[in-house]
């Protein structure tokens, strides 16, 4: 009887905790949709912003955000794939694997402002790339690298051993094994990693605030050396400085679009993760 009461109480506490988490999430989502919804219109989505964000839309900010994310993904993907392959396929030493894995997890937990600071000093100042699209891509690439690397590594490690052994037994060398067995059986994991990494990068403001983006005076970058407008900066500046309610509504509208991008990325990553699991169980 006593055990039953304890179990029921524990279940009740867990339900309250879960409910609180879900409620908070719904509150945030609800307020963004409630406050940002009125801003949404064809013009808002496809027009340039004007009058310091008080008028116009967020077209260039949305494209800029996507450009920054796409560049970061293209830079980090080969590096993450190479690291994951090195760790899973080529390194025999357990110590090396452990050290590298710890480093990658530490990198994942690093505060993003540090990425911004170190990235700006290294890329922007030392390599002289300045406040630019290139600097932003490089910093975001480094930032999403651990997420991507871990996802790819997990996907590779999840490949059933029978496939590797079959490849080996046919005389496939390392490269052929990677090309025909490892990559085809782990690409869903790679895409999942990219999408999750991008979702993280999409929400990131601190790292790109002073390194890649400016609030006004820019449309789309004409070269790698130009800064790029982003939704994150747009929201931050409007939220801090806007005095009239129209500008604030536009900030909420931009937040809703950013949230929508993140939602799409995460939904796709879950969809692909499910498919990866099914393939691995074949």
């Amino acid at each position, binding site marked *: 009887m006593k055990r039953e009461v304890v179990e029921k109480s524990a279940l009740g506490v867990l339900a309250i905790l879960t409910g609180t988490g879900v409620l908070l999430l719904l509150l945030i989502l609800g307020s963004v949709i409630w406050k940002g919804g009125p801003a949404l219109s064809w013009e808002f989505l496809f027009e340039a912003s004007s009058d310091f964000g008080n008028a116009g839309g967020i077209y260039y900010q949305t494209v800029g955000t996507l450009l920054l994310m796409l560049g970061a993904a293209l830079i980090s993907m080969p590096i993450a794939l190479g690291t994951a392959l090195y760790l899973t396929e080529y390194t*025999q030493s*357990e110590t090396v694997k452990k050290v590298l894995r710890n480093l990658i997890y530490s990198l994942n937990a690093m505060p993003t402002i540090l990425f911004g600071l170190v990235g700006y000093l290294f890329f922007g100042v030392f390599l002289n790339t300045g406040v630019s699209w290139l600097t932003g891509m490089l910093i975001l690439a480094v930032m999403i690298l651990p997420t991507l690397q871990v996802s790819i590594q997990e996907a590779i490690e999840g490949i059933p051993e029978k*496939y590797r052994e*079959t490849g080996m037994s*046919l005389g*496939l*060398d390392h490269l052929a094994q990677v090309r*025909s*067995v490892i990559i085809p059986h782990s690409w869903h994991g790679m895409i999942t990693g990219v999408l999750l990494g991008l979702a993280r990068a999409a929400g990131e403001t601190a790292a790109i605030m002073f390194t890649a983006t400016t609030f006004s005076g820019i449309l789309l970058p004409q070269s790698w050396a130009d800064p790029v407008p982003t939704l994150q900066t747009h929201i931050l500046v409007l939220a801090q400085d806007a005095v009239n309610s129209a500008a604030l509504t536009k900030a909420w509208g931009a937040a809703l679009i950013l949230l929508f991008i993140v939602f799409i990325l995460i939904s796709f990553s879950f969809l692909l993760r499910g498919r990866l699991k099914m393939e691995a169980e*074949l």
Partner: protein
Amino acid sequence: MSKIKNVMEMDNAAIFYNGKPVLDKVCCGFRVNAVTGVVGASGSGKTTLLRTLSRLNDRVGGFRVHGQVRLEGHEIYGNGTDVYQLRRRVGMVFQKPVVFPKSIFKNAVFGLKHLAPEMKKEFPQAAERVLREVFLWDEVKDRLHKPAQTLSQGQQQRLAIARTLAVDPEIILMDEPTSSLDPKSSTAIEELIVSLKNRHTLVLVTHHLAQARRVCDDLLFLNEGTVWEQGGCLEMFENPKRKETHEYLSRWNVDEPAV
């Protein structure tokens, strides 16, 4: 046996996992164009012996081989051995059928695609040849581009053998290839094994003593990580030299399903 040419031999070989011996003082040979059965209780080291012959354990941490393992007189664990070439020459068929999530055709030419990409135009003929060799052609010729997973377990195992044959190995190692198959599919694989020995040397690990008796020319009896007896198959069933061999092999017609 000594007058007959052994294509592969183990000479005083010992195999260790993390310093722990799994096989010890193994001396045995595998005759060319013969089927050698490897029998023994579970845990006696049969699969380890098989995997050692094609260096499939190289990735396993703590795996060590002492003594000699030779293919046509050349030490395969020595410096300078091309391990990829060795694995192509010494093919392996696993216990459970392994097909890649690709079409039947792509599975059949999977190894060829990498080992002889210049032959790409000849892949259809090569696929037909190996699928005929494993008696699968008539069953799949109209659905070559359908997923291989749609085949039955027995058909998948024959496809796996066809894929191995496509890279033309001299020796084919088979690790209990019928253990997950129904009696009808097992019979098909047994017939295939017998037909393959004209062109290949086969080493067959099996728990089915009746199967060993039906298809093997030679027999190797492993017990507790050592070779207790090796000889002609029927001779060992009829007149084993050791009491333990007699005790183990005498059950050949007791445990077997009627095939």
